[in-house]
């Protein structure tokens, strides 16, 4: 018990120190209207920082992310739509820069794989449950043996 308190303090200290760079990571924005500010905020959370890869442009302290945020601000000021800004970055960095990849032929497996796995799981579960139900209710000895279920076979 006595060892846990210093550990907790240490964890808190480390977490606080880790948070420090993020305070300055978000660049001061100078967009004229709250609407533009809101779009800017949403956009920078949807793009990946290509250098750190698992952080968004909003959270990344690296200077390339700052350059990209500046690019987004300039495009917003120039009147570009969110769609145009997305196209700009996808054309140069690929779909990888989007945290939510679009549903296209190349990314179809990414979107469909979970459903395919779910279907495989459902079919296997059904197969297993039906096998077990047949074994429990079935009174045909041969069928039970064919099933190879360990439970009923022990009794025979």
């Amino acid at each position, binding site marked *: 018990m006595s060892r846990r308190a210093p550990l907790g303090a240490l964890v808190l200290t480390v977490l606080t120190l880790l948070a420090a760079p993020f305070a300055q990571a978000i660049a001061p924005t100078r967009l004229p209207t709250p609407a533009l500010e809101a779009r800017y905020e949403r956009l920078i959370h949807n793009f990946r920082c*290509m250098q750190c890869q698992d952080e968004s442009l909003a959270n990344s302290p690296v200077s390339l992310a700052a*350059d990209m945020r500046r*690019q987004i601000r300039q495009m917003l000021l120039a009147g570009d739509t969110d769609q145009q800004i997305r196209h700009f970055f996808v054309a140069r960095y*690929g779909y990888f820069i989007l945290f939510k990849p679009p549903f296209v032929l190349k990314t179809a497996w990414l979107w469909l794989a979970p459903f395919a796995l779910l279907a495989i799981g459902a079919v296997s579960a059904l197969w297993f449950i039906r096998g077990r139900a047949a074994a429990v209710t079935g009174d045909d000895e041969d069928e039970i043996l064919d099933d*190879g279920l360990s439970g009923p076979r022990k009794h025979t």
Partner: protein
Amino acid sequence: MIRYFAPLAVFAVIVVIFAFGLHQAPRKDLVPSPLIGKPAPSFTLPSLANPATPVSNAALRGHWYLLNVWGTWCISCRIESPELLAIARTGVVPLIGLDWKDSRSAAIRYLKQRGNPYQQIAFDPGGLEAIHWGVYGAPETFMVNPQGIIVYKYIGPITPGAWARDFLPRLQAGQAVSGS
């Protein structure tokens, strides 16, 4: 019998998938560029040596060239620098430098110390041009053909092996075609 081996088979499939994933994971740093096969972004930037003299890749139309993104702050670029000098000595293809997010004086000093492999160097201290090329690190090297199309992108320091394997065959094939 199948009943006992089915979980094992499923386990084996999962192991294969995880092994594949773990094996692929380190290559996550190499993001394929969507610009391959597309026209190279055209730029006109001040040259490193003389801000009054612009460097433009429009003038390079009709020639093969390599655009090498570098900076004095980039450690891998230092590792790459002897190989770039060796490439420049062969005279196979001109090297165009894009000095990325750098200080002019530091870059000039760096090239004086190590030698300058570049035919021309465009200076991009703000990193605006680099975004157009989809640059996300240094060094990165783009191979551009005489039609101004990016045919290849190499990420990381060029090694003698990479030069022989990834660059030379493409250049030779391309130059044979365009020369005929």
